[in-house]
């Protein structure tokens, strides 16, 4: 028996919205410590890693480890049936071939349940090493979304240059060039508007804007996003999911030997 109840049901909607354009289907691994998901997009260019701890749920029960293969487009359609203020419970019995979503309105006057079929997915699990990154930049998630969106007008890739003073995002293309500089601003009035840089070594890396724009679909999840970068190592774009976990995206940079 698996059952996870989340009063803040809108969080489920935001999480699915953040990954459904990148992943068509994924395996949700559930155990007594929580729910995890790891999947590559269909092109195997980027990696999504989601971790939701059991303590973050209002009730959480997982009698034995299970993996639920779910079509995310179907899951998104079902979750759109839930109101933003609904309490959402996800449950399935051991060895069942379906998963049930229960939506309860705040005053409990309306209760809906939807069942979707589970898929038998054969997916690879990648080991992600714990890494100390050369630069870790924390900035407003909305600002990062805006930067990626604006620079996608200019070119297909963005060059991120991180120094102690700040971080610069640059793009160039047929239309021209664009540069956006954000100064470090750790003492911003509002914590969510701060730009904080932790740096061991300055880096300049190039990334595909196509994927960064997919990643920024997670903006509604958190006010802040963290970019972790090292030379020739995949970028990590992390959004904290309330107090219960994180959603991370991984994307390889342009490698040094690929400079034109």
């Amino acid at each position, binding site marked *: 028996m698996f059952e996870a109840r989340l009063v803040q049901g809108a969080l489920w909607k935001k999480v699915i919205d953040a990954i459904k354009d990148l992943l068509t289907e994924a395996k949700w691994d559930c155990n007594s410590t929580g729910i995890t998901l790891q999947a590559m997009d269909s*092109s195997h260019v980027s990696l999504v890693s989601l971790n939701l701890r059991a303590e973050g749920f209002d009730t959480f029960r997982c009698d034995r480890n299970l993996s639920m293969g779910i079509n995310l487009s179907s899951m998104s359609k079902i979750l759109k049936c839930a109101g933003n203020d609904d309490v959402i419970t996800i449950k399935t019995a051991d060895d069942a071939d379906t998963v049930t979503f229960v939506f309860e309105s705040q005053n409990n006057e309306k209760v809906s349940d939807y069942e979707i079929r589970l898929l038998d997915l054969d997916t690879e699990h990648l080991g992600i090493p714990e890494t100390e990154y050369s630069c870790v930049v924390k900035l407003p998630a909305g600002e990062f979304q805006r930067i990626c969106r604006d620079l996608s007008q200019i070119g297909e890739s963005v060059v991120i240059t991180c120094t102690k003073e700040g971080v610069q995002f640059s793009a160039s293309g047929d239309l021209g060039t664009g540069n956006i500089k954000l100064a470090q601003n750790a003492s911003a009035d509002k914590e969510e508007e701060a730009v904080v840089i932790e740096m061991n070594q300055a880096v300049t890396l190039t990334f595909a804007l196509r994927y960064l724009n997919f990643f920024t679909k997670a903006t509604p999840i958190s006010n802040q996003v963290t970019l972790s970068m090292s030379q020739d190592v995949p970028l990590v774009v992390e959004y904290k999911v309330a107090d219960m976990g994180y959603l991370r995206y991984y994307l390889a940079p*342009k490698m040094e030997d690929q400079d034109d």
Partner: protein
Amino acid sequence: MVRTKANGCAASRKVVAASAPRKSLGGGGGGGAASSSSSSGVSSSGKNKYAGCNPVCMRPTPEWQKGIGSFFTKSQAEGKENSWQGADGSSGKTKAIDKAGPSGSIS
């Protein structure tokens, strides 16, 4: 007389027109990205600051893009998440990058 009276109310009429519901809801012509931002749940000041302007321009994947699979080792079981995949198949905690092409196709 009626006309004069109406003119006297012109200012307030303008105000009413300017606060038409669809405009005051902040959807203001920003395209998809703006609307997704407005449904975000991020603080209201954040919505106004970052919403609007250009929609996302969907770009192709650059030719240089490597697959993510060449950077991580395939783990058979959980708990083996401690090493980078090296080009020679070796692994280590420091960066050791496979410079071969991606294992999967790139769209």
